[in-house]
């Protein structure tokens, strides 16, 4: 079975690195995107098996919600599971309404929990 691809859309470099280290050690291929635009572009290009999405993404005027909406409009991307991982705790309803599969507050989950959710979604 080929290696599953995870796209991480996250602007904070240290956070990117933790995701990368944890998920590669779990056996996934990890691709990083630091802005919303880059996220959508990369998603279209690599068609990941799962996306980890932050909400506050400065720079390109595209936040996590925009990325999510873009993905849901795209026939080829709309069924990819999306885990929203953010430190905002008031956006759960909106995120789920747009189609996020999970909403986790980073500070309130362990990195193992993150990996578990990913594994569960990808049925590893």
């Amino acid at each position, binding site marked *: 079975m080929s290696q599953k691809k995870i796209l991480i859309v996250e602007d904070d470099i240290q956070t990117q690195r933790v995701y990368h280290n*944890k998920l590669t050690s779990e056996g996934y291929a990890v691709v990083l995107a630091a802005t919303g635009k880059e996220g959508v572009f990369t998603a279209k290009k690599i068609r990941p098996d799962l996306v980890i999405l932050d909400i506050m993404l400065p720079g390109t005027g595209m936040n996590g919600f925009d990325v999510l909406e873009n993905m849901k409009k795209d026939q080829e991307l709309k069924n990819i599971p999306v885990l929203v991982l953010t*430190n905002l705790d008031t956006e*759960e309803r909106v995120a789920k309404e747009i189609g996020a599969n999970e909403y986790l507050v980073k500070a309130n989950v362990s990195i193992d929990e993150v990996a578990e959710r990913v594994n569960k979604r990808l049925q590893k």
Partner: protein
Amino acid sequence: MVRLRHSKSPKGSFEADADVKKYVAQRLDPLVDVLSFASIGDFTKNVHISKKEDEFTPVNVGVQVLLDVIRDKIRELEEEKGRIEADKKQLGTLLDSLPVGVYIAEVPSGKPILVNKKATELVGRSFDPEAGVDDYTKTYDLLTEEGKKYPTKGHPLYITIKKGIEAKKSDLVVRRPNKSLITLKVQSVPVHDKVGNLSSAIAVFDDITKEREVENLKSQFVSLVSHQLRTPLSNMRWNIEMLLKGDYGILPEEIAGVLKDVYESDKKLIILVNDILNVSHIEEGKELEYAVGVSPKKIIHKVLTDMKPLAREKMVKLHFKTQHNIPRVFIDPKHLFQIVQNLVSNAINYNVAKGKVTVHLRKGTNKILILVEDTGIGIPEKDRERIFDKFFRTENAIKSQIQGSGLGLYIVKTYVKKWGGNIIFTSKEGKGSTFFVELPIKNHIDKKTKT
């Protein structure tokens, strides 16, 4: 006595009658004068009472006495009126000198009986004597904070007039004729007459536009700072977790020990930031709940697992006693987690070495009961009333140098109330405390409701 000539008149009886009539008329005329003045409200004329008594004297005296009494009454009434007017003027001056708007409303119409200067100033227009409680929104251009028409039924005076109870709102926005917007805090109270019937309603209102702006800025700041704080905190958490798990190789025991301390400090900081954020959300009224069927058992297990290191550090033993078949509760899992986490962490933090914390989970009629029992320092009698207040900390907690923000129980109570539950406690200083949380199994709050 005057003898009527009639009796001994040599003339005929007709002439005698005429004489009598003339005499009577003569004697009555002055009286009639006085009475006709009286009939048009002039009681100033006096009856002439001749020194010589005759048949008319008692009538004259009687009328004069009556006049005197009436004059006294009138004077009394006028004095009273003067006093009332002076009182009214005083009240008017007093009301006008108040720094808050006052509107006294007629019941049940809600039309104004009395309005002070400040009220007119705040609303930016004079009050319409014909505008009743159903017209306030239209007449005074009242809006909600979102800029929609203010619902008539939400107006404090409406509530007071219809239900006879006190009402308070701090979200009433007035669009003045010059289009400027001000936010008012309005409090209205019922006034009852001697027999307890609602006789009027008084609304007192104040401009809180500035306070609102400051509050908003403050909470925006708090939430910004808290979110920015969380990013490095969650990074630290995840990195230490991976280090401790050996993802980067096995660590020497000593280093692992130090890292565990760093980890616990980081988690404490996360909890504090969470508390500050939660309070800020509560105050913004922006708490967005996401309710689902939640297993209280699972949540309690998770909290107790999370709390193990803290309990170990404080040398406190954790116990969990649950009944079977505990039903799911319809609640936001984050909130239930917060409720249990705050109660358990208090029970550990305010405990004594070798103390014990027992969480009981029980089923009641249409509700569940969570008891958190500790063997800690207890809550002093005098502090009990304020224990759920924001930032409040008991004297013995401060003396014992136990760290805490004073936010935990405030959050717990807010959440428990929000989901239609109840919280009470018993405590004995030096022996321990037990908190009882009751939560309804089915909740009336619609899960789609955004508040």
